[in-house]
């Protein structure tokens, strides 16, 4: 019964946000909430790999970036409408997630973490060096269209907000389903005790790669929306420090805890947008907050509530 109420409460909040924000908030707030939805999705996708499957992925911005660049390149070079690029971005990111993780999932703990940092750096270099002449170098790609639906361009910030919020809703639903499926359970088995899981017939390598692919695919979808929100992409949005932020969101918020991860995203991405004037202090304060929170609440601010079925 309890499970049902919390799901409904989440749904209710989501609907409220969807309806009320465009009605009552000004453009700046609509923009911030759109921006939040995107980073909430990326954070949830980071959580799939880190919080649920227990793999120390500190290069998650790569997959976010691959999605964003896929959309930008398809739209500017081949004129593919933004929303059509969404499934392609998901598939391309997921493929990269699988390909890049395949050789490294056997690495444990810190070694995996360092390897993923390496991927992030190589990815960033590739973008900056304008690899294949398609990424636009340090300035990235700009002049990207607004998304259109049924031939009607979604120009207004309210429209983009609704679009982003719908993706967030879908991802929240997927996360909820994940909890109640074999896939989600296997991730937890692998996280808690890989050896015990494999002796029960779990193909650890397959599921670890799947976790990366799933996380990457979801991040790729967020990448598409990021591109359409800002109508530009550049390497600076997908650097290693972004991955660090995503990593911190999951650990500070609470691993495998949807409210925790969303709260983390609010702290790291919404708060700085609100207090732009204090921008220079923000990372200093974040750094301090990360230490203090970890010392006081090593499990995160809103740790996963044990729902034992």
């Amino acid at each position, binding site marked *: 019964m309890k499970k049902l109420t919390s799901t409904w409460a989440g749904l209710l909040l989501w609907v409220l946000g969807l309806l009320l924000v465009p009605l009552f908030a*000004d453009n700046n707030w609509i923009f911030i909430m759109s921006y939040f939805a995107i980073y909430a999705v990326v954070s949830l996708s980071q959580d799939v790999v880190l919080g649920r499957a227990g793999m120390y992925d500190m290069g998650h911005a790569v997959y976010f970036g691959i999605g964003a660049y896929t959309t930008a390149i398809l739209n500017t070079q081949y004129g593919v409408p933004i929303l059509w690029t969404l499934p392609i971005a998901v598939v391309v990111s997921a493929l990269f997630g699988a390909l890049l993780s395949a050789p490294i999932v056997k690495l444990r703990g810190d070694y995996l973490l360092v390897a993923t940092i390496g991927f992030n750096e190589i990815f960033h270099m590739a973008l900056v060096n304008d690899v294949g002449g398609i990424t636009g170098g340090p300035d990235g790609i*700009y002049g990207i269209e607004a998304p259109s639906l049924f031939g009607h361009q979604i120009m207004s910030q309210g429209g983009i907000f609704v679009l982003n919020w719908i993706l967030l809703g879908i991802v929240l639903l997927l996360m909820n389903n994940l909890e109640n499926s074999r896939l989600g359970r296997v991730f937890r088995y692998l996280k808690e005790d890989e050896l015990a899981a494999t002796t029960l017939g779990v193909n650890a390598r397959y599921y670890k790669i799947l976790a990366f692919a799933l996380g990457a695919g979801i991040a790729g979808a967020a990448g598409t929306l990021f591109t359409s929100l800002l*109508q530009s992409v550049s390497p600076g949005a997908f650097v290693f420090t972004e991955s660090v932020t995503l990593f911190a969101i999951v650990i500070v918020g609470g691993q495998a805890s949807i409210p925790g991860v969303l709260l983390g995203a609010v702290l790291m991405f919404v708060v700085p947008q609100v207090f732009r004037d204090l921008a220079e202090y923000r990372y200093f304060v974040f750094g301090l907050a990360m230490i203090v929170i970890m010392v006081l609440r090593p499990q995160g601010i809103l740790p996963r509530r044990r729902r034992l079925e």
Partner: protein
Amino acid sequence: MFKLKTLVAATAISLGMSATAMAAGTVTFGVQAPITGQYANEGQGIEKAVKLLAKQLNDKGGLLGKTVKVVSCDDEGKATQGALCARNLSNQNVFAVIGTYTSGAAGAAQPIYARANILQTSDGTAEQLTQHGYKLFFRNAPPNSAEAKFTGEYLVKGKHYKRIAVLSDHSSFSKGLGDAVDEAVKKEGGNVVFRGYINAGSQDYRSVLTTVKSKNPDVIYFSGYYSDGGLLRSQEKDLDINADFVGGDANQNVKFAQIAGQAATGTVIVNVPAPENLPYKEAKDFLADYKSMYGELPPSIFTLTNADGMRAIVKAVEATKSFDPNKVADYLHNLRNFPGITGPMGFDKHGERLGSAFQAFEIQPDGSYKTVYPTH
């Protein structure tokens, strides 16, 4: 639960915010500039210049009777941050945006300002900025192509260099300028013995310079930014490379000489004249005001070209007696010989600045510039 709280807070704050933004009797100018990061020096210069101009306007009773307000957004010189700034400033209902310094950040912001019907003036020199047909965009510095033509002539005809090495970073501005110079040199019949790239901000350029050295050039031309240019020059000397060093416009910043140290002396920079070398009355007045307000001189000419961008917009508002961006833009497209700080100026129908002459100037031991080309 927290989501609800955020929502309530969001609604509450946003109601408060929109009230202030809509305050009557003010006109808001936005500054989009790299206030932190690698090019912070330039960004802070632009912000200071705009605040100075706003103060001067307000002291005289405002613009068409409205108080001039300035809001700034730091784009860190990065494209994505530029787009974020564009969203942020548009949402604060700015009338015009001054800046930004890097072409990438300017380009990423362009479509967003265009959609929001906001005037934009930037010193970004990448060619494509004026090629998208954005009616409200005005470039306040000359484009790469003009600079490259002058540079090619200077290197081949003026200095008779026989072996030229061209270095760039990968930004659209630097790569574009480097490619254009490469082409201009060849057009003049010169010989490019090396064309290479650096990673902006990576500090150690000895590897690439060692490779350059093996090509035995008599000049190294660098089309990137001052922060890398100064280091390149200093490391060139550490490696005993005897080639001259010529830098593109983005090397003209007081920091260049500080970074290069003693090696700065003799370096040549190609740009429109440096602030202290401007002969115009407007320039002398503005520099004096800037110095009395901030206790220092502007970091580079781009502080002044952006100030000119803003002055031209102000002039157009006063002339048309209107805050209609389209009317202002129409006026600006026909503007000729407006007495700018950086010389008489105007804009063509693409928003390209008219009227600026390039010079090559050499850094002197005291850090000042001496014009060495054209010689007359």
